[in-house]
C-alpha cells in the first residue's frame, strides 16, 4: 500500500467520524423531550397554536425526522446555521466564533510550552534512566497526572492571586473589556499566565512520559550501538540518531491529544473564568442551553477530527518508512 492509499484511508476515516458525530449530534437533540419549536424561539415566549403550526411548517418540523429533517439540518449546519442560543438569544455560530480566538490562543500557548518542556525533560529522563533526574521527572509526571485538571487550576489561582497578585479571572480586566486585544497586551498577558501554566503543567507530564518511553525504545535499537561503535559521544548519538526516531510518536501523540486538550480547556477556562469556548460550553451546560451545547460540540469535534487528519498526513511525510501497512 503506497502513500496515496494511506492518504485516502485517512480522509475516509475522518469523513466517517464526522458523519457519526453529526448524526449523534442530530439525534441527541431530537431525543430530548419538549417541543423542538422551543429550540428555535426560546422557552419563555408564549405563542399561539396557529403560530406554532405555521412555524412548524416553516422550519419543516412537520416532515418526518429521517431523512427529511435530517438532511435539512445537515444543510443548515453546512451553511453555518447552528440555531439560536436559548440563553443568549443570539445565533449560536456568532457566539462560537467570537470565543474561538481566545481558546485558540490559550491552547496554543499551553501546548507549545508543554511540548517543548516535556520533550526536553523526556529526552533527559530516558537518556539518564534511573538517575535522580529521571526519578524526579517521573514523580512529577505521576503526580501531575493524578491531579484533577480543575483542582490544579484552583490551587494555582488561589496561590497566584494571593502571593503574586495575579488576576483571579477573566481574559482582561473589567475596564479593558471590549477593546481590541492587541491594545491591551500586558493586561492580557497577566491574565494568561495562570491558565497557561495550568495547562502546561498538565500536559508536560504526559509528553514527558511518552518522549521518555520513546527514547528508551529507540536507545535500545541496534543502530544506536552502531553509532556508538563509530565513536560518537553520547550526546552526538542522541542528537544525530535518536532524536528523529524518538520524536515520531510525539507527532501522533499531539494529534491524539487534541481531543484531550479541549477537555482541559473546558476545565481551565471555567476555573479562571476565561472567556473562551470552554467556558461557553460549561455555561451552556449549567443553563441547559441545548442549541449552544450542540453547536459547541459540533465545532469542537469537527476541529479535532480535521486536526487529527492533518497530523496523520504530516506523519506520513515525516517517516520515510511509512509505505506499507
Amino acid at each position, binding site marked *: 500500500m503506497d502513500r496515496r492509499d494511506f492518504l485516502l484511508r485517512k480522509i475516509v476515516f475522518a469523513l*466517517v467520524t464526522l458523519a457519526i458525530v453529526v448524526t449523534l449530534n442530530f439525534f441527541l437533540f431530537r431525543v*430530548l423531550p419538549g417541543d423542538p419549536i422551543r429550540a428555535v424561539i426560546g422557552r419563555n415566549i408564549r405563542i399561539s397554536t396557529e403560530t406554532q403550526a405555521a412555524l412548524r411548517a416553516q422550519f419543516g418540523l412537520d416532515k418526518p425526522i429521517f431523512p427529511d429533517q435530517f438532511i435539512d439540518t445537515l444543510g443548515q449546519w453546512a451553511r453555518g446555521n447552528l440555531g439560536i442560543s436559548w440563553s443568549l438569544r443570539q445565533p449560536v455560530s456568532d457566539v462560537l466564533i467570537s470565543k474561538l480566538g481566545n481558546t485558540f490562543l490559550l491552547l496554543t500557548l499551553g501546548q507549545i510550552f508543554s511540548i517543548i518542556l516535556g520533550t526536553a525533560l523526556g529526552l533527559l529522563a530516558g537518556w539518564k534512566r534511573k538517575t535522580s533526574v529521571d526519578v524526579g521527572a517521573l514523580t512529577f509526571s505521576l503526580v501531575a497526572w*493524578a491531579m484533577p485538571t480543575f*483542582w490544579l487550576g484552583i490551587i494555582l489561582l488561589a496561590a497566584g492571586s494571593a502571593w503574586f497578585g495575579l488576576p483571579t479571572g477573566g481574559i482582561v480586566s473589567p475596564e479593558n473589556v471590549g477593546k481590541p486585544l492587541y491594545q491591551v497586551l500586558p493586561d492580557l498577558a497577566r491574565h494568561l499566565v495562570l491558565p497557561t501554566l495550568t495547562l502546561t503543567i498538565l500536559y508536560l507530564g504526559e509528553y514527558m512520559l511518552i518522549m521518555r518511553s520513546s527514547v528508551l525504545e529507540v536507545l535500545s535499537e541496534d543502530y544506536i550501538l552502531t553509532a556508538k561503535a563509530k565513536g560518537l559521544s553520547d550526546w552526538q548519538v542522541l542528537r544525530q540518531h535518536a532524536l528523529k526516531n524518538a520524536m515520531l510518536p510525539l507527532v501522533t501523540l499531539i494529534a491524539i491529544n487534541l481531543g484531550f486538550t479541549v477537555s482541559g480547556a473546558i476545565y481551565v477556562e471555567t476555573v479562571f473564568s476565561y472567556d473562551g469556548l470552554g467556558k461557553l460550553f460549561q455555561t451552556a*451546560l449549567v443553563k441547559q442551553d441545548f442549541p449552544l451545547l450542540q453547536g459547541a460540540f459540533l465545532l469542537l469535534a469537527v476541529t479535532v477530527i480535521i486536526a487529527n487528519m492533518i497530523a496523520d498526513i504530516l506523519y506520513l511525510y515525516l517517516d520515510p518508512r511509512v509505505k506499507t501497512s
Partner: protein
Amino acid sequence: MSRRWIILKRNLLNFWHAFRRNRMGLFGAFLVFSALFVAFFAPFLSPYQPNETIRDANGRGLTFAPPSVHPPLGTDDAGRDIWSQLVYGARISLAVGFLAGFIAMFIGSTLGILAGYFGSWIDNLLMRTTDILLVIPDLPLMLILVATLRRLELHISPIVILVLVIGLLYWTTTARLIRSQVLSLKERQFVARSRAIGAGYFHIIRKHIVPQILPLVVANTVLIISVAILIESGLAFLGLGDPTRPSWGTMLNFAFDRNAISNGAWWVYLPPGLAIVWVSLGCVLLGNVLEEMLNPRLTSHHLEGEALMVARRPIEPSTQEKP
C-alpha cells in the same frame, strides 16, 4: 483440579514475594487500601453527618471555620464539617470509580477477546470503533450525553448516569490491550493443540486464554479505575453529580461556586483534591507496578552503564588454585 490450584498458589506466592520488594507498589497499595478503608468505615470515622451544620455557642452556623482541634479540617460555607464530608464523599467517589472501571474493564475485555480470537470483520469493526472513539473529544461528548440523559427525566440517579457514561466510553484502551495479547496467545501451541482435539472456541477461551490475560486485565483495570475517579471528579465539579450525596468532585464544585477561594478558605478546596490525588496516585502506582511485573523491561539501553564497564580488580600474584 487440585494440581492447578497448587500451581496457582505457588504463582501467587512468587508474585507476592516479588511485589513485596517493590516499594512503589507497596506505597500504591497502601494509598488505595487506606482510602477503601475510610470509605467503608465512614460512619465510624466521622464525628458529624456530612450535611449537618455545626453551630457555635450562640446557635449560629459556624461558617468557614478554619481547621483547629475541633473540627480538624474546618467547615465550609454552610458550617458543615469538611472531614465528615470527605469521609462520606470517599464512598461516592470510589464507588463511581470502581463501578465505572469494572464496566469499562468488562466491556473492553470481552470485546478485546472476541476481536483478538475471531479476527476478520469483528476485529476490523472493533479497531475502527476504538479509533473513532479516540478521535472524538471525550469531555464534550460525555457532557452532552450526561446532559441529554439528565434532561430525559428518566428518574435515574445522577450518580448512575455518571457511572454509565464513563464506563461506556473508557473501554477502548483495555480492548486494544487485551486484543493484542489474545492475538499473540492465539498463535501459541496450546491453542493449536486444543483445536486439534476438537475443543470449541468457548472452551479454549475460558480455559486457556482468560487465565493468561487475567493478570494484565487486573493491572489495566486498576489504571482505568484511577482514570474513572479523575473523570468523575471533573464531571461532578461541573455540577453533574448529585448534590445530596456529594463526592469529592461535588465538594470542589461547592467550594468553587460558593466562594471558598475568594474567602481564602483553603481547607475547603484543598482536602478533597488531595484525596483525589491520594487515590488516583495509589491506583496508578499499583497499576504501573503490576504492569511492569508482567512486562518487565529489565534490559538496559545502549547509552547506559559506561561508567562502570571497565572494573578490573588488581591481579593477585598467583592465579593458581591450590589443590
